[in-house]
Structures are given as structure tokens and as C-alpha cells.
């Protein structure tokens, strides 16, 4: 099995999917000749031609809106938004259109569409190249939101997203692109959307998280293990739909839950998870649920001290989990 970076896993999956299904097209800003500003689509235009890997004008509403039309007329578009921060000009098309087309047509029309977007901070990207935007979309029925935390999951989730009959937002953490590596099988496989994954078993504290934070949490768990604290890590992988069963299972098992995400605290995914646990497993808890999340500032600042103050690190996770274990 080949060891690949998170980025390579995505690129190779795109390649595999483009080869498998001639209805798939990729488009977005700079995805063609340039191979994307992060090189995710590098080489794909050369292999599949300008009709299937298209450099679009600089207009996100047009990118998503035309993808909707193209999907309805028989293609399987995978548009790319260059940075998740620039998805907002397209929010009208995503929320008002893609998300509700099936519902509003009473099941007649559907929009099989995968919108890929790099997100996340800690890369000196400042307020507009660092954001986590998943909570905006997780709020919207009709959309699915996935965020892989390993190269292996990146492949399986992308393939599932492509097969899905509904619009899927596929968010890729920029800091994960080259820092995360792992084994990725050659053959195609699917990871069901809505299925979480237990990345580590433990008995004292559960960390529920997703994306890049999974690797940070794993590092924290190793540190804590040396201190005699046993940490369980649940990787959500899908933000919508959530794997409610696995969330409740781990909460019941350890009785102590720490939810971690880089996205802002208020209104973030952590709130939903906490509510689910409070509704269904409150009396199995041994401590109040704890959330560790990005601070409530509009977006991540640039200057190194400020960026560092914003970012979630494995040290911060270690500290929060240790504290919770002591409760």
C-alpha cells in the first residue's frame, strides 16, 4: 500500500473518479493549467482535457450555480472553491438552491454535486485564508458536510461524496495537505457519509473532533497516556449528518467528553454535539461536557502572536483533556 499525503490522496482519488466516470467534470479558479493554487488538481487537465477540467472565471456564484445546472443535465460536477473563505459569494446558490432543489421539487430534481474547498488556519492566511466554515453549512438540511482527518479517509469520503445523489461539501484542511501522511490503498473504496470512526480507544476521557484536529488529539492522547490518562478519540468525519450513535456510545463509555474544533466556539459543531449528549446521555456523564474551540473573533488574525493565540494546538488539547480527567 502506498504512503500518501492527504493532498495526494485527494488528487489520486479525483484522478481515479475522473477515469471511472466520464460524467465527472472539475472546475474552478486556476484548477487547470496551474493545477490549483495548492496543486491538488495538478496534471488532471493534461490527462482529461479542457472540457473536463475547466478554468472558470473568478466568480463563485457562477461556479456553483452552473454546477447545479450541469448536474441536473447529467454531469457529476466537482467544483472547487479556491479557499473556503471565498465560498460566501456562492452561498445563495448553495443554500437557497442546491440544498433545497430536491425538497422543493418533491423529489423530482436532485443535485449530485461535490464542492471541494480548502479551509482552516495556522498557515499565515489571516482573516480570509484561514476560516473554518463548516458550521454555516451544517445548519442546512439538504446539504452534507464531510471533513476527512486522514489520507485514508480523504479517499473513501471523496469517493462516497462523488457517488452521493445530493450536494456534499468536502472541506480539506490546508495544514493537513502536506503534514498528514498515511497508507492509502490503490483500489477504490467508500467510507459512508455519516459514519464516524473511533481513531483510538480509551476509558477516561473522550475527545470528539474532526479534520486536522484528529491528528492533534492523537498526539495529545499519547502524551496523556504517559501520565496514566486513557483517551478515546472519535473522528466524526461527517459533520452533517452526524453519527449520533457513536457520539452517544463514547460519551456513555468514558463519561467525560471534550469536543474540539478550530471553528469558532459559539454556534459551532461542538454545541450540537453537547446538546445531543445532554439530551440522550446526561446521566451517564461524570463531568460537564467541555468544548475547546476557536475563540469568538470573526476570523484568524495574521501576526504570528495573534495567530498562535487563536490556533488550537495539541498542547491546548492535552491541557483541556487532563483537566477534564481530573474532574
Amino acid at each position, binding site marked *: 500500500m502506498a504512503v500518501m499525503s492527504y493532498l495526494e490522496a485527494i488528487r489520486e482519488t479525483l484522478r481515479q473518479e475522473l477515469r471511472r466516470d466520464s*460524467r465527472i*467534470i472539475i472546475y474552478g479558479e486556476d484548477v487547470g493549467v496551474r493545477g490549483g493554487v495548492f496543486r491538488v488538481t495538478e496534471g488532471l487537465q493534461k490527462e482529461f482535457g479542457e*472540457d*473536463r477540467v*475547466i478554468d*472558470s*472565471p473568478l*466568480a463563485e*456564484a*457562477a461556479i456553483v*450555480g*452552473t*454546477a*447545479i*445546472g*450541469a*448536474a*441536473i*443535465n*447529467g*454531469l457529476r*460536477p466537482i467544483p472547487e472553491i479556491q479557499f473556503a473563505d471565498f465560498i460566501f*459569494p456562492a452561498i*445563495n*446558490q448553495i443554500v*437557497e*438552491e442546491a440544498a*433545497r*432543489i*430536491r*425538497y*422543493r*421539487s*418533491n*423529489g*423530482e*430534481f*436532485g443535485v449530485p454535486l461535490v464542492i471541494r474547498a480548502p479551509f482552516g488556519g495556522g498557515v499565515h492566511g489571516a482573516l480570509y485564508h484561514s476560516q473554518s466554515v463548516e458550521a454555516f453549512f451544517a445548519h442546512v*438540511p*439538504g446539504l*452534507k458536510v464531510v471533513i476527512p482527518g486522514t489520507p485514508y479517509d480523504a479517499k473513501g469520503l471523496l469517493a462516497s461524496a462523488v457517488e*452521493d*445523489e*445530493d450536494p456534499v461539501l468536502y472541506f480539506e484542511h490546508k495544514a493537513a495537505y502536506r503534514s498528514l501522511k498515511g497508507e492509502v490503498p490503490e483500489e477504490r473504496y467508500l467510507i459512508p457519509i455519516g459514519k464516524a470512526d473511533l481513531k483510538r480507544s480509551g476509558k477516561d476521557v473522550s475527545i470528539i473532533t474532526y479534520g486536522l484536529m484528529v491528528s492533534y488529539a492523537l498526539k495529545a492522547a499519547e502524551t496523556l497516556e504517559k501520565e496514566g490518562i486513557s483517551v478515546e478519540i472519535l473522528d466524526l468525519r461527517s459533520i452533517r449528518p452526524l453519527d449520533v450513535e457513536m457520539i452517544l456510545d463514547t460519551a456513555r463509555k468514558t463519561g467525560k467528553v471534550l469536543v474540539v474544533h478550530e471553528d469558532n466556539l459559539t454556534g459551532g459543531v461542538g454545541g450540537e454535539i453537547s446538546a445531543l449528549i445532554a439530551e440522550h446521555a446526561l446521566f451517564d456523564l461524570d463531568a460537564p461536557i467541555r468544548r475547546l474551540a476557536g475563540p469568538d473573533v470573526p476570523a484568524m488574525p495574521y501576526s504570528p502572536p495573534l495567530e498562535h493565540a487563536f490556533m488550537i494546538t495539541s498542547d491546548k488539547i492535552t491541557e483541556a483533556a487532563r483537566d477534564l480527567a481530573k474532574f
Partner: protein
Amino acid sequence: MAKVKLTPELLKEIYYYMALSRALDDRMWILNRQGRAPVVYSANGHEATQVGAAMALNRGEDWIVPYYRDLAMVIAYGETPREVMLHLLGRADDPNSGGRQMPAHWGLKRRHIMTTGSVVATQDVHAAGLALASKVLKDGRVSLASFGEGSTSQGEFHEALNFASVHKLPVIFLNENNGYAISVPARKQMAIMDVAARAQGYGIPGVIVDGNDPIKVYEVTQEAAERARRGEGPTLIEAKTYRFVPHSSDDDDRAYRSREEVAEWKKRDPVITFEKRLIDEKVMTQDELKAMQQRIKDEVNDATDFAEKAPLPDPSTLGRYVYAE
């Protein structure tokens, strides 16, 4: 009219759809005033534009992405009066939305009428996307989006025309310019006389046509469709027309336009003037006309009765079709 080779059958069909649309429209207002239909959006006044454009396409095969005013367009495209009335009354069997959307939010997959929402100008981009797929799949289809002149102020209008022109997509942008966006007159909407002037910014033809003359609209749409099929890209058509009724049944147009202005335009009522032309040019006899009008009346009655008797959606279906089933 003489210079176009149009068969009498086609001319009669055009008239039929225009008159049918008007009759359905009139009935909807009655149902609304009787408290039986919560809201009405009218095609009243736009029929020539809509039917002229629809008839120039390969109906049911080419895609149309209409807006709420396009009753005449969708019936010319094959949505039946019964289906229209099921939609108006929010019945379970409404094929547009199963009673989920407001009236006049068209969508009929069987006839390649794309589903449409309320947010204006989103459909322009969808039409470009449908056309993108046609280009990639080489399926020979053309897509047509229609929209009001007010909606051309939206960014998505611009993005759609730009995208479509860069990629030379087989798409037609049909602007039904009735001079008002609810109460806002066109001069407060844009600093130009003609929406068609915007075409120049995209390097595509911008064509102005008398929207009250179905034959002229037919001609320019046909030309635009041919151009699209030849791979030469989009066309922007501006059909100058007028709506004879308020924006919707919730609007009172006396607040923003004079009765004289409305009366002036009504002298050129497309249904009446086209009827007269067909008689004058002996395409139809008075008897034929009467028979057709009777048939329309029957159809409208039938559609109304049918829809009123049809069941409402079951509340237990509220949660269905959020995702694929």
C-alpha cells in the same frame, strides 16, 4: 408576419397557448379573490413573449429555466392546465413541487422545465450550467433562462452571461422587460434604455424585440437557438412588454403607475391583437376561434375542478426528500 414560414397550425397553436394562459391566469385571480388560492403571479401581458420563445425551441427536449411570470411559457412547453391548477392550489400531485412551493415556481422534469426558486437571477446561472453539460455531453440541447429586467441588476445575471460567453455555451437569456420590478421603474434599475445593451460587455449579440408580437419573438429565439446549436454561444434577447396586472395578488400597482399608462399598453394586448391578426389574415375563421375559446374555457373549468378535488399533501410527508430516497 408574412415573411416567416409559419404554418397555420403553428400560428393557431401559438394563439391557443396565449389564450389558454390568459384564461388560466384570469381564473387564478378569481380563485384568489374567493379565498381559494393564497397568491397569484401573472403572465398577463407577457404571453406573446413567452409562447413565441417556447415554440421556437425543441419543446420538452431543450431546457427552459423559467421564472414566476412564465405561465404561458410552461404550458406551451407541455405543462397541462390540470398540473398548473394543482400547483396553484398546493395539491399533493402538483408535479412542480408537490405543494411545497408558492404558485408559479415551475419545474417539470418530464418536459425539461428546470425547478426554480424565489431568489431572482439564480436561474440564469443554472441555464448556463445546463448548457455547459450540453456542450460537454454534446447532446444538442439549448437552454433558455427567462427573467425580468429588474433581476438583471443581480450579480448572478452578470456571472451567468460572462461564464456562458467565455465558454460559448448553447444558452439563450430571455429578458421579459415589463418596465417594473414590483414598484421600481426600469430607470431606477439601470442607467440604460435597453437591457440588450448589456450584451456588449460579454461580446454576445443583444437583440431587442417587440415582446407583444409572438412571431417576432419566435423569430429571434429561433435565430438564437440556431446560433447556440452551431456552437457560437449565447444570445441576450430583450422582449419589451408590459404586465397588465399588479406584480402579484398581494400588490397594488396604483401606488406606482398611472391607470392611463396601463390603458395605453392594453391597446396592444398581445392576446387580442394576435387574435385579430389571425382573423384578418384568415388563418382562422370566427367559428374556429369560438370553438377554440370554448375548448379553453372547458379546459380551465376542468383543471379547476380537478385540482380542487385533488388531495392535499399528507403532513407526514413533511420530512421527505431532504435527501435522495
